Structure formats: C-alpha cells, structure tokens
C-alpha cells in the first residue's frame, strides 16, 4: 500500500467526531445505550436543526403573518444615508429583525427564506458527496494496488485543487438559464467527496482484515457480496456521523460562494450574501450582521452537536466490544 497503514488515518480523518468517553462504572449496556441516545448533544442538536427546518418550511407562513417577503423594499424606513432608522436596525412589530440598509428589505424574511436555500443546498450536495465518497472509498479500500493508487491520487488532486477558481469559471461558463441552486448543489457535491472517501477507504481497509470478512472470502463470496453484506454495514455508523458533520461544511461553503457573488443570484435571499453585505455595515447597523451570522453559526453548531451525539450513540467500536 502506498500510504501508511489505515489505523492512524481513520483516527485522524474524522476530526470532529470525538470518540465517546465511556462512563466509568459497571452500568448495564442497555442503560448505557439509552443514555447515549438521550445525550444533551443529541437532544440540543436535534432541537436546533429542527428549529431551522421549521423556519425554512414555515417561511411563507411568516410572510402571511407579517406581510413581508424578501423582495419588497421599505425605503420609508431608511434615513437620509440609507441606514435604517429606529432601534436595532429598524426592529419593530412588523420587522422582527429590522430591515437592511440601502433598500430596506425585511431581515427576518431574508433569514427564513435564506434557510430554505442554505438547508436545501447543504443537504442535497451532501447527499451527492456522500454517495460519491462512499463508492470511491469502498473501491479504493477493497481493491488495493492499482485501483487504490489511482483513486487515492485522484483524491490528492482534488485536495490540492483551488476550488474557488473552478467555481468562478463555472458560474461564468454555465448559461444563466441553468438553475443556479442546482449548479451549486452539483459543484459542492462534486468537490466534497474526497474527505468522505478517504475516511471510508481507511475504514474499509480495517474491516477487510476482520475475521468475518476473511471467513466470507474463504467461503467463496463474491467481492460484491462482501462489500454489500460484510463491509457496508460496518461503515454505516461512521458514514452517518460523517454525513451529519459534512452538512454544516456545505452550508458554510454555499454561504461563502454567495458571499463571493458566484452563489445564489439575487433577488433570491441567501445568508452568505446577507453576511457579506452586512460585514461592511457591522459598526453602523450591527443587527444586520448578527441575525444572519447567528443563523449560520447556529445551524453549523446544531449539526455539529447532532453529529457528535450520533457519533457517541452509534460508535462502531462499542458495537464490537459488546
């Protein structure tokens, strides 16, 4: 094999998934399992993520309540230098998060409709990168030699490639009739797989050496059978954790691309674009930065908690020990 044995890599790759600390003492496994599924991280992660999912889904309902949408201008709420008048950037009963400088668009609408964009793109692109990463990781891990070397070098190319350049070029080349959200999903998905693949490869390498795999091999099982029934189930817990932890990264990348101006086109609201606008106004109208910034932070935080909680609950090593 071209890289050092898999063990260290498998430990280093999932930087965010902490291995669980087993409770000291001799509690029963069932109790332990239940408490794992009720850990604060898992509970709070679920609460925060659900909150944003609801916010995204209910965005049109909020529009009915407040009468605001993320397109309408409220110039009457701006002072002579185009800064919102009133407390906290124009916070009022009608505009819960105030309005933006320059055009007076309702910030709450931007955050709620922006959640649709952020979550939608984050989830969809993660699905793509997970499928790619799993497939490539499995192949590389199971077929050492040429296949592995080829796939591993491909990963290296992706790691070393300036993604930004590609994103800029693509946004310019693809005609404007092509739906931008779909483009972002594809780009983020296509560039997001190497991390997952590396992890899956390492884990596959470990599982390959396991007794039950060797046993299946001796009994003449086809590679497909072994991959499907012996290795894949062993990968699932790690994959779920990795996927949960990858989502916030994608959401952040979407925000960053919109921030750069090659993400979602206006007038479709986007957290990233709101943040990039708001950074300039931070000292004058801090609330404009705080609301979308907090939304981005909280969603990331929520998914990270969820991932940690899942990792504790699903930890594959524990399954082995039991």
């Amino acid at each position, binding site marked *: 094999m071209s890289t050092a044995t898999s063990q260290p890599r498998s430990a280093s790759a999932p930087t965010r998934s902490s291995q669980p600390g087993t409770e000291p003492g001799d509690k029963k496994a069932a109790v332990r399992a239940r408490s794992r599924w009720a850990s604060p991280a898992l509970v709070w992660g679920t609460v925060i993520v659900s909150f944003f999912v609801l916010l995204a889904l209910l965005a049109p309902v909020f529009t009915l309540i407040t009468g605001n949408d993320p*397109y309408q*201008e409220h*110039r009457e709420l*701006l*002072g*002579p*230098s*185009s*800064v919102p008048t009133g407390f906290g950037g124009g916070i009022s009963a009608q505009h819960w998060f105030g309005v933006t*400088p*320059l*055009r007076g668009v309702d910030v709450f609408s931007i955050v709620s409709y922006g959640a649709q964009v952020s979550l939608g793109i984050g989830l969809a692109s993660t699905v793509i990168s997970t499928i790619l990463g799993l497939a490539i990781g499995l192949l590389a891990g199971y077929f050492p030699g040429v296949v592995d070397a080829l796939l591993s070098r491909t990963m290296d190319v*992706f*790691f070393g490639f*300036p*993604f*930004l350049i590609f*994103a*800029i070029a693509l*946004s*310019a080349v693809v005609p*404007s009739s092509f739906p931008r959200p779909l483009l972002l999903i594809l780009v983020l998905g296509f*560039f*997001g797989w*190497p*991390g997952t693949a590396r992890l899956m490869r390492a884990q596959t390498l470990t599982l390959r050496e396991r007794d039950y795999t060797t046993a299946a091999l001796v009994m003449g099982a086809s590679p497909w059978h072994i991959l499907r029934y012996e290795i894949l189930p062993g990968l699932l817990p790690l994959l779920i954790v990795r996927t949960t932890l*990858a989502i916030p*990264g994608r959401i*952040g*990348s979407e925000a*960053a*691309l919109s*921030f*750069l*101006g*090659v993400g979602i*086109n*206006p*007038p479709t609201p986007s957290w990233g*674009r709101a943040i*990039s*606008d708001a*950074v*300039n*106004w*931070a*000292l*004058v*109208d801090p609330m404009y930065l705080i609301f979308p910034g907090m939304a981005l932070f909280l969603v990331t935080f929520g998914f990270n908690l969820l991932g940690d909680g899942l990792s504790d609950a699903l930890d594959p090593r524990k399954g082995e020990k039991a």
Partner: protein
Amino acid sequence: MKKKSLALTAVAALTTLSLALAGCGSSATGLGGANASNGSNTQAAPTKGGTLTVLTSGTSINLDPASSQNLATTTGGMIHRRLNEWKVSKNGDAELVPDLATNTGKPSENGKVWTFTLKKGLKFSNGQPITSKDVKWGLERSFADTFSGGLSYHKQLLEGAQDYHGPFEGQELNSIETPDDQTIVFHLNQSFGEFDWVASLISFSPVPYGEGKNKDYGTTPVTTGPYEVKSNVPGRELVMVRNKYWDASTDSVRKAYPDSIVYKMSQDSSVAAQQIMAGSGDGKTSMLGDLVPPAQLAQAQANPAQKALLATSGDGALEYLAINNERVKDKRVREAILYATDREAYRTAAGGEIAGGYASTLITPGISGREQYDLYKPGKTGDVKKAKALLAQAGNPKLNLTLVATSSQTEKASAIQTALKRAGITVTIKTLDSTVYSDTVRNAGDFDLAISSWQPDFPSPYANIAPLFDSSQIGNGNMNESHYNNPEVDKLIAQATGTVDKAKALKLWAEVDKRIMEDVPVVPLIYSHNTFLRGSKVANFMIGTFPAYPDYLVVGLSK
C-alpha cells in the same frame, strides 16, 4: 479542502469588494455627505515637512509612465512631470497648465501638428538634464510589447504608430521630432483639437534616453517631480522621499509639503477608514486612497468631528444603466426602460440622497462646454404609465432581460429589477466575478443590461463621449458597453474631435450629447459623488470639480 475553499471564497469576496471601492476611473460606490464640503474649509494650514501616509487597498503600485493609468493629480503626478499638467481649484473647472513645457502646446496644420518647447534647466532625479529626446524616448517605450497597458490615447493619434514596436531594436517613431533639446513636435494622423490635454497624461512623462529596458522599471523609476522613489514593495509599501533636483520655481502646480510620503498597500478599506477616523496609529497623518466604504461614511456623518474629516466631490462620474443595443433594438423599448427606471430607488441603494445628483446628460458636470438638458423628464421615480404606453406601441414584447452585475452591485441591481418590474419588464440578475463581468460587458456582449460608471481620463467632452459611444470602441475591452453603433454619431464625434477652435468644438460636443440621448442607448442614473477621508492633521485636502479625487499634489500636514 472544505475548510480551505471556504476561507478562499469568503476572502475573495472581500477583495472584489475593496477593488470595486478602490475605483479606477470608473467609480462604483460613490457616496457623499448631504452638505459635506469638498474639503479644506475647516482644515488648518499646511506646513512643510512630516510624513504623509496613504492607506490603500491596492496591492501593487506601478509607476512606469508607459504602463501606468494613473490620474494626473494623484500618485503618478507627484513623481512624474509631463508636458502639461492639471491645475485643480476648489471651485471652477480643472485648468490645463504647462508643466515641463513653456506653454500648453501650439497646434498647426489644422491641429494635425503640435509643437511643445521644454523649460530650460530641468533635471531628472539622477541629476541628468531633461531634454526633448527623453520625452520622445518615454513615449516610444510605451509601444514596446513589454510595456503595454497604460493610457494609450497617443497610440491611436501618432502617425505611423500602428506598425511601431518600440525603440529597443533601434527603430525610431518618426512622427515625433526633436529638432533640438528643447523642442518636440508631434505629427498626428488626424486633426485633434484636444492633444494638449492628451499631453497631460502620464505617458508624456520623460524617461532618460536609453533607459528603462527592464520590465520592472516601474517599481523604482527615475523621476522628475518633487519626490523620488526610495522603495516600492508590492503588497507592503511605497516610500517616496524628496527629489533634490526638482526646482519649485519651475513648477506651478505641485506644492510638495510633506518630506516623505508612504503608501501602505493591501489595507482593508473599512479598517483603514476606522483607523483614520479614530486617529489611532498614524491615523492622524494618513489619508484614505480608496473611497470611504458606505458604512464608515454613514458612521462618520453621525459624528461632527469625523464628518469634518470627509471631503465629498461634486457631481462626478456618470453612473448609467447600459442597454445592449445589439439585443434591445427597439428604441421604444429602450425609452420604456428609461421611464420605468426609479432613480430615487437606485440612489437609495447607492447610499442615499448624498450618493450623487440625478443625471440626464452624458457629458458630466465639471467638463467645460457641458449643456444641461433633460430630454425625457421621467422624474425621480420614473413614469410607469409612459413606460407601459411605449411598450404597448412596441407591440407589448415579452421582455425578460438579463442584468449582469458584480457582487458589489447586487443592491443597485435589485433596485433596478424592482423598478422595471413595475412596467412589466422582467429582469434576471446574473452576478459575476469582476473580471468575468468586464469581459461579458466589454467583449462578449452576452447581456441585456449592466450598471456602469465612467469618469473621463482627462476633462474634455471627447474623453467623456467618444470612449462610451463611438462604434470603434465596441468590444476588445473598450467602454462602449451599450454596443451603440450609429454612423451619424460617429461622424459627428469625428467632426467635433477634429475641431481645433475650442469654443466651436464644445458647441459640437453638446450637440453630440443630445443626439446620442435621442437614441436612448443608456439610461443616465446619477452623477456620483465620491467621498474621501483624511486624518485630522492632513491639510489642504480638497476635491475640485474634476477629477472627483483629492488633489494629491497640494496635500500637506498641519502642525
């Protein structure tokens, strides 16, 4: 990978933004104080001495007269003297005065031949005397492929210049004659009444004969102005110190108050503005090389002490909505777009009532010969009824127009989108990276609408109109972004250009202005006001009617 790309993208956005703010000829986000002055009223008197700091978001400063596009009254003006120079005054138009020359140039043969005489006793920063050969050599250098990229008006005017590839292989450009060390004669391929203005551009600065072979000459060039370059490190700083061979008595424009000037490059404009307003570090003796970012501007206006540090230009660059005339061919539709546009909403999105004055003409205020007119009178917020009526006349075409914008223009673009929707015109905004944006608008033409802005390179109607509306300026990265092509207008432009009698020429230009607007190739939006910032000890910091930038040549420090 993931982490890195995120960082990369986020950061690129900041760069694009600050570049847009830095503005270069075409200012993007000009904003001004409601009653903000154009400077120097409340400032203490400047004294000789001290170190002036300029904070800029720019990452490199090219000082090569051949490839620099510097304005005559900013950085390049402090180190490079040229045949003519601009004398900026607070009130009144910029005046053309002789600099190296004894007068602003004598036209003959109906403006096809121009003769300049150099002052005697002038010296380079290396002590060598300045002769007409050095001026000629400087111009010839600009034709070498190695040194392209500068202000190239002379390249289209000098006879026989098309096939000339620079002096480094021993060829001379015969249309520049130097009968003696003091005299220089230019032979043009057409009558050109404003060659005296062209001779005030940085390309007309001398380079010692035979020198400047290396591509990096522009890092620390030999200078002629009151300063020479001590060091120039891209991304870090440029340090200018006094040039002992400069003689103040030969220079009617440059005041040269500070002993040295330090440019700090790669600054974040918001942070730099903050530093200057707070007076921390060198803030008190610094000025901001970029436009004041909108937020810092709003902040400064709320604080009287900081407001006094602002200087706002009068009506400056023309900001306009370019309509791609090759794609939107029906004049009635273009007129409908003009009526549907809400200029008040646009100005609000540009920073409020202080972002600029409403525009109706193509020649901008501050240019002599401009005549104020308003052909359509759409009012501040537009006239939706008229727009709809015009569209009905045009057969109610189903309009779905693509508006291309850079990431820093999204608010303005959204304002246009909302306004046109009122008349039933659907606008799709496509945001692009700034370099791709330039290519789309100035080359490929794959767009319907674009927001743009233009400040001429020298204060004349020619530099105002011809680059934007002459059909020869379509594509190749040139500024005729509306792809406007009208042979009649081309002819009028040629006629006005060739008129040497200034008064007559100006009259012609005013006619051209109106004639173009009859076709509505663009929708004039506002004349932007640029606002700049100085530290509390920076004196004589003022902006004239043209250009809409502070006059660096006269800035000094107070005690």
